[in-house]
């Protein structure tokens, strides 16, 4: 076990864990930030998506010793009151069924919009096809994304 200081949701956090521990489990087990979900552990489902310096990353694929100075944002830190435009669009479209995949979906979309405020259908599909929704909410996810002001 090694001690690390990482920046999560704007705060410096101290964690003791093995260097190869995926960030996913650091968040869930060490920091009790359980909004980030485990779905596959192999980078194939997107349930564990967080922002690393503003980019969407699969936290199950990022070992703790490679986090370094980068700043991590999880679903819990995306907005103060759940009022990020993506979260609001999700509520407006009542996207969720079981809801398990949705934190990962929201984190993927919000990172996309950071870097490409007006994605077209092809870009939305290309980005979002890394996130599985077993309940099949894809048409609502797409409608929600397209309703966000910047997307238009």
């Amino acid at each position, binding site marked *: 076990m090694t001690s690390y200081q990482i920046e999560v949701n704007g705060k410096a956090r101290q964690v003791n864990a093995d260097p190869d521990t995926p960030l996913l489990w650091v968040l869930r087990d060490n920091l009790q930030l359980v909004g980030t979900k*485990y779905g596959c552990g192999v980078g194939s489902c997107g349930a564990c998506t967080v922002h690393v310096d503003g980019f969407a990353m699969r936290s199950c694929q990022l070992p703790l010793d490679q986090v370094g100075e980068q700043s991590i944002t999880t679903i819990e830190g995306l907005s103060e009151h759940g009022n990020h435009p993506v979260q609001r669009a999700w509520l407006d479209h009542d996207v969720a069924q079981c809801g398990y995949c949705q934190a990962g979906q929201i984190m993927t979309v919000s990172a996309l919009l950071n870097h490409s405020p007006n994605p077209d259908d092809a870009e939305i599909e290309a980005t979002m096809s890394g996130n599985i929704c077993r309940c099949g909410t*894809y048409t609502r996810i797409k409608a929600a994304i397209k309703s966000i002001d910047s997307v238009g």
Partner: protein
Amino acid sequence: MSTHSEINQRRRFLKTGLLGSGGLLLGFNWLTGCTNNTAGHVDADSGPELPDTWQDINAYLKIGNNGTVTIYTPNPEFGQGVMTAMPMILAEELDVDWKDVISEQAPFNAEKFGFQFTGGSRGIMSRWAGLRQAGATARQMLITAAAQQWEVPVNEVSTKAGRLFHSASDRSAGYGEVATIAATLPMPEEVPLKEIKDFSIIGNSKKNVQGRQIVTGHPLFGIDYRKEGMLTAMIVHPPSFGQKFHRIRNLDEVKGMPGIRDVFHFQTYKDGFEKGGFDTNAFPELVAIVGDSTWPVMKAKKALLVDWQEQEAFVESINGFRGKTTRNVPTGLENSTDHESRMKEMAAIPGREVRKDGDPERAFQSATKVLERSYSAPFLAHNCMEPMNAFAHVEGDKVWIAGPLQAPGMIEPTIAARMDIPVENIDIEMTRMGGGFGRRAYSHYMLEAALISQQVKAPVQLIYSREDDMTNGIYRPAYHATYRAAIDENGQLTALHIKAGGVPESPLFANRFPAGSVDNYLAEEWSIDSNITIGAFRAPRSNFMAGAEQAFLDELAEELGKDPIDFRLELLDRAKENPVGEQNDYDPERYAGVLKLVRKKSGWGEGDQDLQRGVSAYFCHNSYAAHVLDLKIEDGKPVVQKVTCAIDCGIVVNPDAAANMAEGGIVDGVGNALYGELTFTDGKPDKNNFDTYRMIRMNEAPKEIDVHFVPSEIDPTGLGEPPFPPVFGAMANAIYKATGERRYRQPFWGEGLKG
């Protein structure tokens, strides 16, 4: 009826005293309570104002002194929306403003809430009458309380949106002001229910009551459950069906790994245990690894070396919904290629006759043409996004479990029997489920967690890795069906013959359409024993039969030179006017109703020559669904342009959420029809994670889904399952239109069997 009130304190759901002082709950009950719902108000940061005191009115609701109402949803939530729809039903009859409602998952308590089950699309249907009664009787008690307080006749008091009125004296009061008196009154026996035309909540879409918690990442799911001192456990199971535990080779080494507390082998059920219908489990013996947190346990799991051995054949006795049955579990390592050839062999010999009308043999003998087609589909894994998991804390002879499960009432007696304790000593908390699809009706993982907690004497969270979840499954079986149609010299359909079977169960529903619509009809079935475990998967058996039947009817219509919708309507007309046989398990008129609606909404036959479309309809779980699926092949890939869907499920409680569920069922159907497949080589599942098991993704989902409900005043019926099965037929028929080729083997766009 309880009359106690609580002072601004959220009621702890778990029966108190059980594990009384046991540690700090990091965000479960209190979180669910405090930041509960937004009651459909997207802009609200929190739900209704919390009152100073609560008054229990009946098991399903309590009213705060400020008029806020908490309604308990008895059935577990797995994304079907019961936590929104069930309170809507009660709130309608209570006549309360939806914005004043808090929705909470009820505690597991069979005495109070009956069968708390999610499955079979029965939730709303089974609770409809009870929830209305609960709301209406409570309203009546509030009216009586107000009448007493105002000293006026009961029939002069009216209600509106959570307030009581006596117009003659111009008085009014909020429900919260009389709730304390109301709670002391006897429960009225007969109360009038609202007229359907007066509904103001039912039929008006409300947003998911946990929507805000979902989008902000609140701990709602079983896997999010936390308790102080909680350890993490994982299991190791045989890599192949047909194998069992032999020995651990490096026990001490793995036990000594950092962060590991214990490694041991255990048997889930006692020898000779008579299983209930939901006690299915793939492997009788497992190895548990317990550690401080997930990653060390995952590493130990990788390092562990276990020798497995052949599982000899055995017979299981099961006492389930269908009475006492036995399951023959053969020995050996099975292959999907063998399954396929054995299914073909079985299809070629006579099966067990289940239904016969008229004289099908003669009709086939005298036919001028016989159309015969065979259809098959592979095993499927449920692949709920949240892998199986369970929290358990065993202290002495007390068991506390929490987690995602569809049937708490079914696992409770199983745990009691295994642990030699009375059911009263078991407390079960139902968490939100990250999907279920039938898989979580089989909650052996709850018992596994309890046995592990008992061994390590600590609270434990058992988590299946994705690989465990996919390879330790209770799968949708592999199926096969042969359809034959006899056509006479006048080009008329004279007989139908269906022979269906599977590994290890038959998918046949002998009394469903097209039974009843053809004079001569024969239905037979067969099955092949297997040691691969199977169970309910969204619309069990229907999810295969609908595809086979609706593809066959399409081809038959073409053979007869008829429009596929007209042909189905003709058959349904016959079944309505002059039904064949005694028992036909469908209403031909409602069946025809969804076909007519989907014909209209999709513009079928109206200048749609350029569209490559397939139609399909099916009845299951008491509801009717029809789809028209428009397909294009783009760059060699099937792209669903649009699915138009018509559903008759009676009264629709929460229309937008209902549409969401239908959309999900359609996407699920498209995905499984095109790609869904789990094959086995030497007993071992060929896929174990999402990098190999192809799940439908956004770029493959239909570009548009248009859901319509048949307006109805019939009590609600199922919705979670019915939209799913007909997708397979619509897809097969659209693929034919788009490619000129009929596909008979699912998945229609898979990579084919290995080996």
